[in-house]
């Protein structure tokens, strides 16, 4: 057997000697991480944290049509469920906005409805506070969605107009518009059907609970290295010299260490997955989250995620160079980048500067990898990013491990 294979075999054995400590550590970490995630989830989604969105509406004087339109909009299920509209004068609205009593003020222009009908589209000015919180952002999303719906309807009308003109039937345009409006309204008014079935989540394409389960798992995976800290320390200078003499350089040592830790992560994850599934089957069968199948079909992705997580952790311990330093750096770096990745609070709620950083954070990449595993949607970009994280971690570990000391 080649000296490299023997070395890697021994590295795996060395890693798996830490299996009992890692399982014990995993149990404690899982409890702590679950508690943190639960609190974060409650803070984010409880009524107490994000209450109803109070919006002031400044109406033009004597514009009954505009008032009717606002009443209709405010009665829509999607709006009614989170927004409270109050008619208000402009100065008072601005005052309340500054005082934080309103999350937005809608300043309606003169002749809004006529403008929509004739295509001149006068703008509704919406004022947000400078330090817009989640409530203001939610309202902004709602108004933008409303504007897009209106634009789509107008595009339909314009399309009808053009068709009539092409066919030389300009005289029938008013009748066509009337009928088209009736037909469009008949389809669009029972829109609650759409809203009931289309759930838009800050957490992307997975349920909030599943997102936090994934987020907890990824943080747990990174911190799981703590019980195996001594395995991650660079070899002593003497050992490095001897290994180098035997032809085992930085690359081989990095590969062995990442493979060892990654395999250990994988084994503990599988064990925890099976235990979690067993507990659920015994106590929460009615919940219906039977995900063991995704573990069976998605294990290659899980292995890849574990290896990528191991490479990230390896780099941190190489940088620190000592047991205590490595552990402190791991805790700090793992939690900080997990926050930036939107692991505690979904990235859409983070300031825009931080939102740009989120996709390149290791946790975000690992979270996407686990999503691939759970949804069985083998998105190439997500898989590629996990591979890239693994490769970058490997190269950095190899360079630092190969340094002469």
């Amino acid at each position, binding site marked *: 057997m080649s000296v490299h294979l*023997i*070395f890697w075999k*021994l590295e795996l054995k060395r890693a798996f*000697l830490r299996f009992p400590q890692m399982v014990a550590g995993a149990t404690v970490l899982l409890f702590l991480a679950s508690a943190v995630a639960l609190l974060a989830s409650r803070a984010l989604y409880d009524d107490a944290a994000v209450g109803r969105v109070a919006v002031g509406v400044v109406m033009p004087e004597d514009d009954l049509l505009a008032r009717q339109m606002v009443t209709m909009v405010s009665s829509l299920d999607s709006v009614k469920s989170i927004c409270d509209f109050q008619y208000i004068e402009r100065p008072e609205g601005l005052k309340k906005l500054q005082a934080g009593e309103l999350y937005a003020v809608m300043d309606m222009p003169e002749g809004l409805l006529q403008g929509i009908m004739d295509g001149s589209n006068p703008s509704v000015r919406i004022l947000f506070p400078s330090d817009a919180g989640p409530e203001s952002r939610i309202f902004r999303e709602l108004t933008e969605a409303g504007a897009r719906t209106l634009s789509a309807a107008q595009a339909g009308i314009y399309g009808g107009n053009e068709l009539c003109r092409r066919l030389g039937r300009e005289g029938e345009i008013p009748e066509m518009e009337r009928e088209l409006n009736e037909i469009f309204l008949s389809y669009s008014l029972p829109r609650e059907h759409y809203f009931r079935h289309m759930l838009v989540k800050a957490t992307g394409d997975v349920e909030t609970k599943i997102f936090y389960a994934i987020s907890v798992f990824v943080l747990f995976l990174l911190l799981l290295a703590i019980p195996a800290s001594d395995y991650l320390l660079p070899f*002593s200078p*003497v*050992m490095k010299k*001897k290994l180098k*003499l*035997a032809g085992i350089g930085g690359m081989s040592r990095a590969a062995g260490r990442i493979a060892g830790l990654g395999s250990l992560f994988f084994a503990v994850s599988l064990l925890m997955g099976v235990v979690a599934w067993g507990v659920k089957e015994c106590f929460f069968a009615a919940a219906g989250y039977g995900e063991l199948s995704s573990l069976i079909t998605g294990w290659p992705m899980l292995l890849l995620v574990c290896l990528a997580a191991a490479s990230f952790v390896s780099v941190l311990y190489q940088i620190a160079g000592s047991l205590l330093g490595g552990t402190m750096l791991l805790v700090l770096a793992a939690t900080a980048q997990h926050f930036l990745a939107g692991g505690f609070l979904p990235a859409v709620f983070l300031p825009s500067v931080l939102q740009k950083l989120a996709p390149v954070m290791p946790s975000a990449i690992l979270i996407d990898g686990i999503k691939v595993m759970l949804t069985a949607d083998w998105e190439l970009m997500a898989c590629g990013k996990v591979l890239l994280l693994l490769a970058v971690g490997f190269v950095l570990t190899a360079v630092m491990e190969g340094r002469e000391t």
Partner: protein
Amino acid sequence: MLEVKSVCKAYAKHTVLSDITFTVSPGECVGIVGANGCGKTTLLSILAGAVRADGGSIRYHGREAVGSPRVFDEEAAYVPQENPLIEELTVRDNLSLWYRGSKKRMAEDLEHGPAAMLGIGEMGKKPVRTLSGGMKKRLSIACALSNHASVLILDEPGAALDMECKADIRHYLEEYKKAGKSIILTSHEMQELSLCTVMYVLKQGKLHQVRTGTDERELMGLF
């Protein structure tokens, strides 16, 4: 046969070794002494191929080793001052990492080879961390010799070992020498140096030969 010619080494502007030239014949034991930090470990590391020399030639049995790691790997058995062992693994695992040869041959060596002679043949399943300092040193020597090299390079082999262990290692080295193999060692202990057939003092980067049997006080005066 080891021939060292004009080997030199400097770290930045500090010259550690300058024009080091000597030979070691089969059955010879060469001792290198000198003050702490004089470059003994650097010299041994260069002879073992663990550190690259800035210039010069090192020939093992006529084969040029400088620039050819394979020659070092096959011809030199290097035992550094600190034990290059993986503490959590067993004695057998550590041996298997360095061993060049089949599993069968390793099992035979554990029964009759250097490992057996050093008294670690029956400790195969013990984790290294449970061994005493002396046993670890013996294991380090056995690991180094797992390539069956004919030149054994030892950096202070007796440091921090008890009397009994030192005596056992000395006994093994005598047997090794009698078998026509060569030893190069550094030490601060006269008993260990009594094994040497040739002695050098390393001072200001240069080797100066001294007669064997020089007493401790006289030797220290030469540092």
